[in-house]
């Protein structure tokens, strides 16, 4: 699947860089990195053609969250698979809110690489431990 595109929304610069490096090295997918919702909106055309979106839930103090990004994607007609990534505890209110959305799966960092690769390849996350 050489034309597959992956959207990564992550506010941590080091982590987003490492995602990009790891995914491009291990797969032939194209990676679109956004560090904020604003970034995502600025790259709207690239973002909306992605096959899978990995959205970090907490994007920093006073910044729109990954949940806001999910809603924006939804409003824009994005119908592909969305995963939330979080470093927070499962019971944290933002994470609980993300779980309630239902249509998106929540993955807790640090996510195992095999799981991450399965997720972005579209095979899902249920056949490997995440």
């Amino acid at each position, binding site marked *: 699947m050489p034309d597959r595109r992956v959207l990564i929304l992550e506010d*941590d610069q*080091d*982590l987003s860089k*490492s*995602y990009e*490096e*790891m995914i491009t*090295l*291990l797969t032939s997918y194209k990676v679109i990195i956004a560090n904020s919702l604003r970034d995502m909106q600025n790259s709207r055309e690239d973002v909306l053609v992605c096959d899978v979106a990995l959205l970090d839930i*907490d994007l*920093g*103090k006073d910044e729109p969250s990954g949940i806001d990004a999910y809603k924006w994607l939804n409003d824009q007609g994005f119908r592909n698979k969305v995963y939330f*990534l*979080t*470093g*927070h*505890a*499962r*019971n*944290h*209110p933002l994470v609980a809110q993300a779980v309630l959305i239902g249509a998106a799966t929540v993955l*807790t*960092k*640090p*996510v*195992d*690489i095999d799981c991450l690769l399965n997720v972005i390849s579209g095979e899902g996350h249920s056949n490997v431990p995440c």
Partner: protein
Amino acid sequence: MSPVNDHKMSMWRASVMLAGMAAGSALIASIGFLFKAPIQVRPMLAASMAELVILIILLAFRKGARLSLSIPSFLLGTVVVLSAIWVNQTFYLSTDLVHEFFAGNKILALGIALIAPPILWVGITAIFAAGIAPVVQFALLAPQMRQKLPLQEPWLTWIYIAVALALFLFRRKWHETQLRSARNEARALVLQQFAHLLINAQHLTNTPLQTIENSVAVLRARCPEQVELIATLKRALARVKEVMKLFSNSDSYIDWREMELPKTVAEFEMRLNELLEKVKSQG
């Protein structure tokens, strides 16, 4: 509040209560005497004024609540009350007016027991003084005057003194238990906040852990010959992940409405230091 400060404040409060109540009681007694026995107004008013002065001094020097001030104030306040009662008894003995002798001493002893100064010797001394005064006064009376007293006095007063002592010791014990319980509760709260903060801080480590996880995968792809190094890194990473998983298993105990997450390591350090300061201040 530290145990030492709490002790000082309790003693100061007890002295203020005694001085305040004694000043008020003596003033009411002097008003009561105004029409029936004007001769008694002056000593009662003097006692009231003396207690008022003690009260004002205590209030003026409330900062620090020094024991060197509150203990003498308490004992002096007791002596002033006992002197007023002594004068009062003497007056009644010189008349044929109906009077319940040593009622003041009994009330004072029970009052001290209820106020319960936190320092044992202060409370016991004051209660004993309330019991000894009638005995001394009785001993100093002429035999014909003694006959004016009820048959069981001054020894009946000592039943009140015994009750007051028991009450005082019970109140003191109760106060100590309350204090210990409040201290333990405060310490438990701080420790709980400490544990919550640590659990909460997992998001500060999970993001860099993901970076390391990704970087190990990159290293494995770029330098496949570094088998040992990659295996070592993976083992170390697995151990850290295991510990972090244990932390995350405890997160269901957190009331998130009460917690504000530290967003940065610097904020986490600041909050941690605040909690450690609290622990230190609790002794």
